[in-house]
């Protein structure tokens, strides 16, 4: 059985201008143009987006779930990165 569905692409949609692109799913397509057209037909039938990114799945580098501890740990003990770590005098009010 030959594989003739084309490679998999990951699709990211921007809902409105200025907003971040969010992953919405994947699809098969043979080239960039087809990936964009298929994404439009599949993921924006109700005006869900104003802009589309199509990225070949195999181009995505992902952290692995087993790494969740050691990989993200360095930031866990750095509470001073959060604004709540600091005391602002009452007289100053909002800062």
């Amino acid at each position: 059985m030959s594989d003739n569905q084309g490679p998999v692409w990951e699709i990211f949609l921007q809902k409105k201008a200025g907003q971040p692109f969010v992953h919405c799913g994947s699809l098969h397509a043979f080239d960039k143009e087809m990936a964009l057209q298929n994404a439009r037909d599949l993921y924006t039938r109700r005006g869900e987006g104003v802009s589309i990114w199509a990225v070949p799945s195999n181009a995505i580098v992902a952290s692995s779930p087993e790494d969740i501890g050691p990989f993200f740990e360095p930031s866990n003990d750095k509470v001073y990165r959060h604004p709540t770590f600091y005391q602002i005098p009452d007289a100053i009010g909002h800062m």
Partner: protein
Amino acid sequence: MEDNKFEEVFEGKLAKNEMVEPKDWMPDNYRKHLIRQISQHAHSEIVGMLPEGNWITRAPSLRAKVVLLAKVQDEGGHGLYLYTAAETLGISRDELLNNLHTGKAKYSSIFNYPTLTWADIGAVGWLVDGAAIMNQVMLQRTSYGPYARAMVRICKEESFHQRQGFEIMTHLSFGTADQKAMAQDALNRWWFPTMMMFGPPDSESPNSENAIKWRIKRETNDQLRQKFVNQTVPQVEYLGLTVPDANLKWNEAKKGYDYSEPNWVEFKNVISGNGPCNKQRLLARNKAHNEGAWVREAAQAFARKRKEIYEAA
């Protein structure tokens, strides 16, 4: 990590209501169960386009036609969301399609019944999509991430499907005597096949126990069936129609309706290939796939050629 350590992490995720993602370790049987369930679901969306497609060219108005076209297009989209969710479990699209086309994989028994009149399009949208939504709302919280996310998208789109079906039933039920009779006839033929969509009774459902244990499903077949009856009966009454079940009656103690079980022998016959339209459906799928082969080949050849030119330059 040892295998049992992996299993502990997996079980821990389920216990905390966290989602399992494609790269996470999962037991082989969980993976197999999901591939079976998600692919059956995808095939149902795709085969489900056929009974409704039957009426696109004969819709009674332009409005009805554009609505039905949009609905059938959505079903195609839903099939594609689900195929890509299944593919994250390590099965290829070609393998999935091949399993459908050779009859190895199943799809919902409901799509092996014919759509004989326009009222059937109403009944399908109202009852069949209504039953599907009941199942899909639950699946939005299923334990496998890509499946749950596909379901969220699908549920958003499905609610228009059920409404358009109910609108057709409303027009017919409040129309002429002949139209009302047509609506009743459609309800008579679709009621029990719709009840079968939730699957065999819990006592005889081989896959239910694992599905609940793994939080793939959160409600059993019988619970969903009961919910569907409770929700639908008042709608039938509103239409002035009659549920074709002499045993249907309100049970105050359980705050729900008592109802007759569908004919489970018929159900088994239909899923094993002997329903009214099984052969027709498979033939139609195979024909569409085979006759579309040249498009896939041409697209592939075009992409290859362009890549060669790009690389030579």
